[in-house]
């Protein structure tokens, strides 16, 4: 079994977002770029699955659509433990375009399990994983909170409203993962960082594909009214305000 983990490169989750170019783009000055948190957990789980030899995972590859400037993120994934990487040399202009590029490479290289995170923390599109599956005409299982092997074939746990299901699908398939997939992201070891430099990164040029969406501009969330403080000795006043002022209880 060959596993592919799709990774996206996003601003560190504590970044204060600022805009540039008349609010049509994000000011990238000073931004720390990290592997999208979901993708880091996906990679962690893929590596755990590979560690257990009984599962028969031959390799874990990461794929990223992005310019050469995102190479450090790819090297980080290699340092954490991915065997090799693929970079599609294009800017990920929208989900449709990005998924199209990934699907094209997956068709060429062949993978059995493709793992994508439920969303990227920058665009919050929740779309690439399902789109890749549809471009390839293969099953996708979403809201996956667990992947394990039983008798050599993968079993997925997916969240449903108020519970969970265990699901089997035929490979190849796309697993779109969320909370629960791995506990803590795996940290690169010193040796990992050393070997990452020499691991192969294959660069593909993009194929022609459409983008279906464009961002015309950004705005900040509406500011919230200042906090109104209630006397800790008289919390009943809070209940009164929630009932009669906010009218939410």
């Amino acid at each position, binding site marked *: 079994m060959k596993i592919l983990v799709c990774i996206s490169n996003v601003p560190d*989750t504590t970044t204060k*977002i600022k805009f540039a170019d008349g609010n049509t783009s*994000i000011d990238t000055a000073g931004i720390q770029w990290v592997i999208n948190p979901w993708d880091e*957990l996906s990679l962690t789980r893929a590596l755990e699955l590979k560690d257990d030899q009984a599962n028969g995972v031959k390799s874990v590859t990461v794929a990223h659509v992005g310019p050469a400037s995102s190479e450090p993120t790819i090297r980080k994934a290699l340092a954490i433990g991915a065997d090799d990487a693929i970079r599609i040399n294009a800017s990920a202009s*929208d*989900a*449709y375009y990005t998924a199209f590029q990934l699907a094209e490479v997956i068709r060429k290289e062949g993978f059995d399990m493709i793992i994508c995170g439920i969303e990227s*923390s*920058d*665009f*919050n*599109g*929740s*779309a690439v994983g*399902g*789109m890749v*599956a*549809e*471009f390839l005409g293969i*099953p*996708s*299982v*979403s809201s996956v909170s667990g992947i394990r092997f039983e008798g050599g074939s993968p*079993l997925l746990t997916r969240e*449903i*409203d*108020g*519970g*969970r*299901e*265990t699901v089997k699908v*035929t490979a190849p398939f796309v697993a*779109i993962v969320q*909370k629960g997939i791995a*506990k803590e992201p795996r940290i690169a070891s010193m040796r990992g960082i050393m070997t990452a430099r020499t691991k192969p990164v294959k660069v593909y040029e993009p194929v022609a594909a*459409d*983008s*279906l*969406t*464009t*961002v*015309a501009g950004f*705005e*900040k*969330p509406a500011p*919230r*009214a200042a*906090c*109104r*403080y*209630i006397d*800790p000795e008289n*919390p*009943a006043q809070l*209940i009164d*305000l*929630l*009932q009669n002022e*906010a009218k939410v*209880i």
Partner: protein
Amino acid sequence: MSVLVYTENWDGLFKKQSFELVSYASAVAGMMNTKVTALSIGKVDAEELGKLGNWGAEKIINAVSDELTVFDSQAYTGIIADIARAEGSKVIIFSNNISGKALAPRLSVRLKAGIGAGVSKLPLSIEPFTVYKRTYSGNAFAHLVINSDVKILTLAQNSFDLTEKPTGAVPETINVSIDSSPVRTVVTDRVQQTGKILLTDAEIVVSGGRGMKSPDNWGPLVELASLLNAATACSRPVSDEGWRPHEEHTGQTGKMIAPNLYIAVGISGATQHLAGVSSSKYIVAINNDKDAPIFEAAQYGIVGDALKILPKLVDAVKGLKK
């Protein structure tokens, strides 16, 4: 031309969010001078289906098939795509919930329709088709232009008010065959709680953080929640420690919620936590540190010891009920 809205059903029943979705679809259709078709997959009885007509659905379709016993994203996508084509739908609307996130991307590829995911307002304009969409986990909103002929939107939960608009539409049930997209998902096991208010559906949520000190202190928090008909939630460290179940974890790496009221007890208000709750209409913070960032996101705050304040709140709500 039409606006198609996918109204999921839960064992044959709709929820408030289904009606919010139809209300939203109806308003979008109004902007486009067209009509709303609501589609539900899996057997729903006529009376329940008819309820969709109270919120503006002018056509109500129930697609049923004996072959469909589990949720299979390919098979469901096939059904929705066929009906969208038959109805000439230009805009297709889902909830931004578990099934909406599973189906919208597949349908997008099938119909070559751009997605506006997690929209929380009506489109800003129809020409060009521009939506208001959450990005950077709530730290920015984008004006996203969808350039394709067909557009798909997923609506953030609890972001649009119910608007009554009875149409008297008579539901039609159609049998669909799913040969084109065979069901390839096999469910081998299922655990599901019933009767509990789901965190993602709840209008009020009471949430505890590390400031609750110990799992043994959750009694009054749970009691307050039950008195308010609220769901319970928690911050990530709390679920990581196993103090509370993982289903309760809210935030960037947990559940995204948008209740009318979010009561954060002993939660500091880290960016990653706020990313999952900042769309709540009202936030109440109870924290003994007056400088905790949660107070910047809150409209009401109490600076003090949560363990002393919670029982008093419980009493106050009990007083209200009398």
